[in-house]
């Protein structure tokens, strides 16, 4: 009778989402409000709106900019974070400046980067990178600070130093914290990607959605929102898969810790 538990799990997984979608469908079915089209209509415009051409023109550039900006943020954030976290004086020197810089809400940098780098890809990538770097940087600093003293002594006594120490010890020890920062950075990056495309852009998902809105193509606009949502969910899923792989040891160790008497 092992079908029942499986059915139960599937039911719990799909139940509420299905109910919500159906509610939306039926609640909006008879809608004559221009700005609240029926769900059926929204879904109906998908094939004609989201063609390969549009993918090429809008989705790919958006995601590419996100990928580049995010990668820059990761590289910069982890390397600077490891450096700053390793030297107490350096951290003390930079802490107030960093606290200030990271407290600046990233979207306000959009106008600044528009000024400096125009409306081409560079400014958008800069916006994404400049916002995403902070969670990564700060979490890396915290993670690197908190490396275990005993492990540090072990490395010293076995003369494990230099790059080996950095990669095998420091960064791996900090990796749970770094991953947490990377996750925050990803959701921030998505937000910045969209914001950078809402105005002063000529391609991208955000740009497409704004075009629909300004052209009063409301069902298409909603479809764009759904696409954004789908992208967000997919990226989160991908991240989760990577995290499972990289932090498998951490989950095991925490579980062992928790169950220890």
């Amino acid at each position, binding site marked *: 009778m092992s079908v029942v538990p499986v059915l139960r799990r599937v039911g719990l997984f799909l139940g509420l989402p299905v109910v919500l979608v159906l509610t939306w469908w039926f609640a909006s079915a008879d809608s004559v409000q221009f700005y609240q089209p029926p769900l059926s209509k929204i879904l109906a415009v998908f094939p004609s709106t989201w063609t390969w051409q549009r993918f090429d023109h809008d989705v790919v550039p958006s995601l590419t900019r996100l990928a580049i900006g995010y990668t820059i943020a990761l590289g910069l954030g982890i390397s600077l974070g490891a450096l700053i976290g390793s030297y107490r004086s350096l951290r003390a020197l930079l802490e107030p400046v960093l606290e200030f810089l990271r407290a600046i809400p990233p979207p306000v940098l959009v106008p600044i980067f528009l000024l400096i780098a125009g409306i081409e890809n560079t400014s958008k990538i800069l916006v994404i990178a400049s916002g995403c770097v902070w969670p990564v940087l700060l979490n890396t600093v915290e993670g690197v600070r908190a490396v275990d003293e005993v492990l540090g002594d072990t490395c010293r*006594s*076995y003369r494990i130093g230099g790059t080996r120490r950095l990669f*095998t010890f420091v960064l791996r020890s900090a*990796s749970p914290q770094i991953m947490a920062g990377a996750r925050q950075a990803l959701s921030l990056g998505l937000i910045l990607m969209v914001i950078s495309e809402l105005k002063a852009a000529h391609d991208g998902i955000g740009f497409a959605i704004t075009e629909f809105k300004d052209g009063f193509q409301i069902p298409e606009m909603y479809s764009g929102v759904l696409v954004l949502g789908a992208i967000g969910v997919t990226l989160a899923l991908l991240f989760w898969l990577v995290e499972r792989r990289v932090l498998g040891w951490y989950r095991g*160790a925490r579980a062992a810790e928790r169950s220890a008497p």
Partner: protein
Amino acid sequence: MLDIRAVRKVYDSHGRQVEALADITLSVADGEFVCVVGPSGCGKTTLLRCIGGLLPPTSGEVYVSGRRVSAPPDELAIVFQEYGRSLFPWLRVDQNVELPLKAKGTPRRQRTRLVDEALEAVGLTGARTAWPWQLSGGMQQRVAIARALAYEPKVLLMDEPFAAVDAQTRADLEDLVRSVWRQLGVTLVFVTHDIDEAVYLGQRVIVLSASPTVVVEDIAVDLPDARDQLNTRADPRFVTQRTHVYSLIQKAKRTAALA
């Protein structure tokens, strides 16, 4: 092999000067097994860290193989008390044991051989692909010991390695250390607060005083080379010597309390 000359260590602790070690002078010959005991807080760990190059003495010198120690020397390995924290949780057991060899630059085939032999010596061949946190405390400490063994050091320092382990496991590990020592002929300095353990294991027992710490007495242990938990501990010579050490430590504690 080991030469400790007039080592003194003073810390700054919250503005106060704390003299952890006042004047420690002793020598350890090649291949000797020496145990260091003393009252709590007398600086046994500090002394070990100075010998191991992890802590520079305020004055005095430590010589290993005739060379002055200013950083952890090449031919020395340390086994810490907190075994759980001294193993890398993101590496499996065999990778943990292998790591110092990789850092040393040992070629792969030799590394594998050394790792295999070390794991066999501590009885953990079956656990080589396990994660450290899957193992019990005693097993984790064995991994740490295996790691030290694979490194093929000339000097092995052990800092109260069995303090956090249950009594039965401790007995097994004590015998393991002795057998490993006899097999490999390393020079072993073993710090412990357990007087029985010190007398059972060592060829010499160094008794430290309370702070300001000096060497109170350097006792040659009068027991046969072949020791086992049951018979040796019942031997009258064992009892006499451990009582002697115990009384020295009690005296040291009382002197400290009066000071």
